[in-house]
């Protein structure tokens, strides 16, 4: 079942590859239906994951490279069930938004589908090798996707993004290899390794430097300060569907892999670094928040905002207790959906106005494109952590979790929600409210199902899980509980 999540997009990519370039409509259809199919599967997986029984479900295990102990071991636990749902949702919306791509549709679709497949690959893999394999594989389609179909400064941006993320990835690769060798099991299987290391942990010093490689390696894609600078400019340059996937999902691979690898395999080392991560995450929150305040470009604002929000995720992760980690995962989901929605909306405007500069848009767009404006206001509210959206729940959980461990950083993080509100409301005001200072005669509101669905879908998800957070938290908690059960020593158990 879950192998299909990877196979369907890949097969579709192959199909697109064999199609002649001119048949754009068919190519779009293939992309759309393949994403639709994976979306349904992801929803199915999410719904049928039983939080009560917990653990890994939908397991597949096939030998792959036997001499090295590499197996295609896939499965879903509580955390990845949620992430799969996120990716299914965002990639489907992304596929719909991609309709605005008009040139070189074939190449675009191929890269897009590969991207979709590889992210699913990461979320379903339970083998260190495949985790890394898919992770790196996801990075590369980004390059042409941004480089070719992007805008403004795209060459610099895409190069920077690719190099940064690869740089982080290869560092973590050394960590992964060392873990493999250190275990001496001749196996990359996460579960086997986890049990092995639980029974015979590595010495503390080794754990520490391994954890450093893993955490700061994956920290790059999570835009941990100061390795975040690829992020705003990368998103700014990317076409909207790619920004959506990148900010929405790909960025979440960092914390996800930290949980999967660092937290489970080198728990003591992770514990050692987490206070530093907490400190940096606060820098993320406030620094990126303030940077967002003075940006002129819509995507830069949202880009910095995503850096800022990843700070919350990392803070939640750093507190190493159930509430915090669950909150972090929930925020990964919520912010993913929210960021996707924001980028989709900005892309929608940009496609018609060809500018994203706040001054040039001139304000007052709310009158002309009310639907988009309403969606954007809702997204902004979700982003600034207002109740009703799942972001709020997630942030609250993170605050509660972090409060027990890092009171001072938490204070700063709480202050961060104010900063967020400032730049987002300013953005909303300057773009959608006020008088129309520049007239955009050609600007049309979203019309019809095809254009409205992605926005509605994403916001509906935020609202639904905002009102019923337990739908998600149930699964997440199951996953996190499992983590805690495996490594009770590093998790703070509050009285």
């Amino acid at each position, binding site marked *: 079942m879950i192998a299909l999540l990877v196979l369907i997009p890949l097969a579709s990519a192959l199909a697109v590859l064999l199609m002649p370039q001119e048949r754009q409509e068919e190519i779009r259809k293939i992309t759309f239906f393949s994403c639709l199919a994976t979306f349904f599967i992801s929803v199915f997986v999410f719904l049928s994951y039983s939080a009560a029984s917990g653990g890994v479900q939908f397991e597949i295990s096939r030998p792959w490279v036997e001499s090295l102990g590499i197996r295609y071991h896939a499965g879903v636990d509580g955390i990845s069930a949620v992430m799969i749902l996120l990716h299914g949702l965002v990639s489907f919306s992304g596929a719909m938004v991609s309709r605005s791509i008009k040139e070189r549709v074939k190449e675009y679709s191929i890269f897009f589908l590969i991207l979709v497949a590889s992210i699913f690959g990461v979320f379903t893999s339970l083998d260190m090798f495949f985790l890394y394999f898919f992770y790196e594989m996801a990075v590369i389609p980004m390059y042409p996707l941004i480089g070719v179909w992007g805008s403004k400064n795209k060459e610099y941006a895409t190069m*920077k993004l690719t*190099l*940064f993320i690869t740089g982080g990835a290869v560092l973590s690769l050394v960590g992964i290899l060392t873990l493999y060798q250190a275990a001496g099991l001749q196996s990359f299987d996460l579960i086997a390794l986890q049990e092995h290391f639980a029974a015979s942990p590595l010495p503390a010093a080794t754990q520490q430097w391994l954890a450093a490689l893993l955490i700061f390696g994956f920290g790059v894609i999570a835009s941990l300060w*100061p390795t975040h*600078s*690829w992020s705003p400019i990368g998103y700014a340059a990317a076409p909207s569907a790619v920004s959506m996937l990148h900010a929405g999902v790909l960025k979440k691979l960092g914390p996800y892999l930290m949980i999967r690898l660092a937290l489970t395999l080198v728990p003591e080392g992770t514990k050692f670094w987490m206070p530093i991560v907490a400190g940096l995450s606060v820098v993320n929150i406030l*620094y990126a928040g*303030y*940077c967002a*305040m*003075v*940006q002129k470009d819509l995507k830069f604002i949202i880009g910095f905002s995503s850096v800022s929000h990843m700070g919350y995720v990392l803070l939640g992760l750093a507190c190493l*207790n*159930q*509430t915090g980690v*669950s909150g972090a995962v929930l925020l990964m989901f919520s912010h993913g959906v929210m960021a996707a929605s924001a980028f989709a909306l900005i892309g929608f405007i940009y496609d018609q106005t060809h500018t994203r500069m706040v001054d040039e848009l001139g304000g*007052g767009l*709310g*009158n002309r494109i009310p639907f988009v404006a309403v969606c954007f206001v809702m997204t902004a*509210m979700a982003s600034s952590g*207002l*109740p*009703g959206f799942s972001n*709020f*729940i997630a942030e*609250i*959980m993170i*605050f*509660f*979790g972090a*409060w*027990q461990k890092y009171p001072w950083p*938490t*204070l700063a993080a*709480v*202050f961060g*929600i*104010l900063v967020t*509100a*400032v730049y987002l*409301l*300013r953005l909303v*005001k300057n773009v*959608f*409210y*006020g*008088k*129309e200072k520049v007239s955009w005669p050609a600007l049309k509101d979203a019309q019809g199902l095809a254009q409205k669905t992605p926005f509605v879908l994403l916001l509906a998800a935020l609202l639904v899980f905002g009102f*019923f*957070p*337990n739908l998600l*938290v149930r699964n997440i908690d199951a996953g996190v509980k499992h983590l805690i059960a495996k490594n009770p020593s590093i998790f703070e158990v*509050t*009285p």
Partner: protein
Amino acid sequence: MLALGWLILFLPLMACLVIAGTTLKHEKISAWIACGALSLSFIFSIILFAVLAAQGFPTLQSTVTILPLEHLRLEFGVLIDRLSLIMLLVVTGIGSGIFFYSMGYMKEDKGYSRYFASLSLFAFSMLGIVVSTNFFQTFIFWELVGVSSYLLIGHWYQKDEAADAGKKAFITTRVGDVGFLIGILFLSSLSATLGKQTLDFQALSELLGHPAGHEFILTAICLLVFCGVLGKSAQFPLHVWLPDAMEGPTPVSALIHAATMVAAGVYLLARVYFLFILSPTALSVIAGIGAFTALIAATMALVQPDIKKILAYSTLSQLGYMVMAAGLGSSSAAMYHLVTHAFFKALLFLGAGSVIHALHTQNILEMGGLFRKMPVTAWTFLIGFLALAGVYPLSGFWSKDEILTLAFTVNRPLFWIGAGTAFLTAFYMGRLFFTVFLSEPKWKKEPHESPRVMTTPLLLLAFFAATGGFFGLGTFLHSHYDQAIAWNFSVVAGSLTLSLVAILLSYLIYALDIPLLKPFEKPFSPVAGLLIKKYYMDDLYDVLVKYVQQNFAGLCDLFERVVVVKGMVNGTAQLTGWAGDRLRCLQTGKVQFYAFAFSAGVTLITLFWIVLR
């Protein structure tokens, strides 16, 4: 019975969702859905009140868990007791009135349906605060109230001022919310150390029965929670948003910036009074802030030309009164004043709305002589005015004097401030009333009385504003945490005298145009300037925002661009490129050099690996 409570809470939300989802295009239907839902809530509240009255007002609570966190259940529920019942009645009652009033007032507005959706959302949020069982739920609705007020203030978002005001309101109140949230975090860990991590009001009040030695943390918690109150109830120094919020439609001002939302802070104080009485320090701070706000707001109201802004400052001042009352030790006095104030202030706002509707201006200097033209409005406005001024036997008299009496017994300096404020209140309200209704007409187009749908709520509210003092609310709300208030005739008589003198003065000056103030104009012009400039608070915040925050943000951005991007990132890239460029200089293209390097390499490796080994 609690099902009724849930229903009261969720009816407005349903209305909001239905309007947003289906009837955006059908304005009439939207309006009726919203009004109907809130009226139903009102009716249910009355039923609830009646039924519970029969049972002697037991405290009822029902909760659902929305998030079972590790050691903390985040819950959502309905708490029905005396306090919340009264508040339910006020919110749904005044709310319904204003909803209906809006149907007339907002006619021909482009965002009619949107307006009613937001209004319903607001009602839902406010009711959520009222019935909240725990801090978490309060915080949720606290934020939602912020959102809906943002939407409502910014209803005419095409107007830059309205959009800015909405933003300002949201952000200013959020400053308070940050403190509130931190307070909640503190509270959760305090409750954990006391035995059970909880945020539930009832559980907390039991838990905090014997708080041995947590004074400091308790004071901190109280002050942090009070930050939330500062924001929502617009107390100094977070009061700046409220006057600006008058950019919204007048019914909105009446509903949320007079009767309900700003009262949420006071309501919260009353609701968690068990917490505040544990910290005398916090209480005295609260009282001080309340009194200070009351005074400065009243002074600022003296010079305003804008009818709504005068009312806004008056609201600030009255809220200061309530907060002071709570700080002085009686939440019931505060609540009492809250209720009466809700009536007469809503009345005043709606009356003002009626005037604005007729004249299309908000400047009182462009009005005058409306008494004949708009009799209903005028008479009801007069009632509101007198109630606010605290003239016997109108409702304001009772509640205000309770507070003054309390201050007189507890804290004499604050009493003097309160008395002074009472005088000022009567004076500026007199100025407003007489200028608008009794002075020489300055309008050009003949004004007409407002339609029935607008005047009916005026009449109803006037009734309650007049009679609000006779329902025994003060004793009804009295809780065992409160100070007992002994009736003191001299205080009452004194304050009444003060009010009457002030009204008389203002009548002489503004209705009869006797230039009594002439001699004071010269020497006091700097003071007037200060007042017009609102004590430069807005400018101070502007400076803070424009220079401090923006510059800090600019600094971050500069750091990002120069140090992080140019320095660390591009620097590394350039360094690598430079190294590559230098390195290839080895590639001189001369074969002898290559041979030399080859031989030297071999020689060196031999040296290091074999000879020196």
